[in-house]
């Protein structure tokens, strides 16, 4: 589904790998090793040399916004521009069910974002990234601020996306989570990138 060809991400040796539909690839490495810049490069948020293909279509064949509607990056620290979470969703269809599956209350969609906890905001951001069904999800520590119960709920939602045939690239510092979700892992160490079984 998503394939990179000698992607030149800042601080890393040229990166080439492939993720199939329905597969979760975990990205691991120490803090500051380049996990986030790799995800940002895949989402075309930073200019990088090298090629990325989505189902055979090269990144530059689509406009930036069109690419990012298909290859979706969810940052570790989500940004908000409206007053309530609902203003941040492109569509309302399936939204109530999705937020409930993530352990949130539907009423919270219309609460002030300032009143939500860090974990609640993180789950809202996950819902926001998923709701319009992007082909590839680039999740940067999506459960970093969640307790065990909320983490399990988020993982169930991520698994559901995988079952639908979407690909997930997941940055996680939790080895247990990597085992539960990912089939393979991409390890970054000293600028070198290695893909192996999870």
């Amino acid at each position, binding site marked *: 589904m998503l394939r990179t060809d000698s992607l030149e991400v800042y601080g890393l040796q040229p990166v080439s790998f492939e993720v199939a539909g329905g597969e979760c690839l975990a990205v691991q490495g120490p803090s500051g090793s380049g996990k986030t810049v790799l995800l940002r490069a895949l989402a075309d948020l930073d*200019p990088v040399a090298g090629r990325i293909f989505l189902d055979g279509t090269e990144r530059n064949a689509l406009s930036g916004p069109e690419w990012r509607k298909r290859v*979706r990056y969810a940052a570790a620290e989500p940004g908000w521009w409206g007053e309530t979470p609902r203003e941040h969703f492109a569509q309302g269809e399936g939204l109530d069910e999705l937020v409930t599956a993530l352990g949130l209350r539907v009423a919270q969609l219309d609460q002030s974002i300032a009143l939500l906890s860090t974990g609640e905001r993180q789950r809202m951001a996950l819902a926001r*990234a998923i709701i319009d069904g992007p082909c590839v999800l680039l999740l940067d520590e999506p459960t970093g601020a969640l307790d065990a119960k909320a983490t399990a709920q988020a993982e169930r939602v991520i698994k559901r996306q995988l079952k639908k045939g979407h690909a997930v690239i997941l940055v996680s510092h939790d080895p247990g989570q990597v085992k539960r979700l990912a089939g393979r892992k991409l390890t970054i160490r000293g600028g070198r990138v290695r893909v192996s079984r999870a």
Partner: protein
Amino acid sequence: MTQTSYIALTYWDLAMAASLILINGLLSFAFRLGLERTLFVAAIRMTVQLMAIGFVLKFIFIQTSPLWTLGLGLLMVLFAGREAMARQTRRYKGWWAYGLGTGTLLFVGLLGVLFGVGVLIGPDPWHTPRLVLPILGMILGNTLNGISLSLETLTMAAQRERTSIEARIALGATRFEALSVVIRQSLKTGMMPIVNAMAATGIVSLPGMMTGQILAGVDPVEATKYQVLITFLIAGGTALGAFVAVLGGARLLTDERHRLRLDRLEKPVQ
């Protein structure tokens, strides 16, 4: 215009007025503001610049060729463009630091003079320097203010709101959709001074140009008519200038792939 009496000032009168700057100096000294040198330089600069422009204008007013007017007008635009750049905390890298403000000021100044002098006032010849240059100066001075305020807001807010702007971009927004909140803030900030000035004009303050005309002996009602015309020209110029500069600035802050490119800004100027 009705000319009545006009009292000419002597250089001695100016020297007496200049003594008032001592109040600023004493305050700075007493409260250790450290502004003495800056005040001194600013006062000297203001005096020399104004005296010089007085002589230059006197020379140009007696020339018949419009090239003199055009030359001085262009020089004013270039200086205003430099000021617009100098007031930015984070300037655009390269030529655009100067080009964006200068280009906008040239466009607005030209349009303002053509409409204000060429169409509305309609002197013969249309390029009469006595009308073109002061009006261009007033349009440039105010538009410069609007442009620099709105560009400052744009670049600083884009930096401050980076996370939310990139969140929108990551969700598939175009560059102008992602920057819409910041663009609105910038336009509002750029237009606020002229909106406030219009509301206060005539009650809280008497504008400088109108006061000058009255002091020079022009009938107050006639002076007011000119002031109204100039204020509308300034308001339109400021709005247009802020709009062009902000849209241009937003375009420069992003690239053709609709990515936020804060790397196109220099490090903050202290």
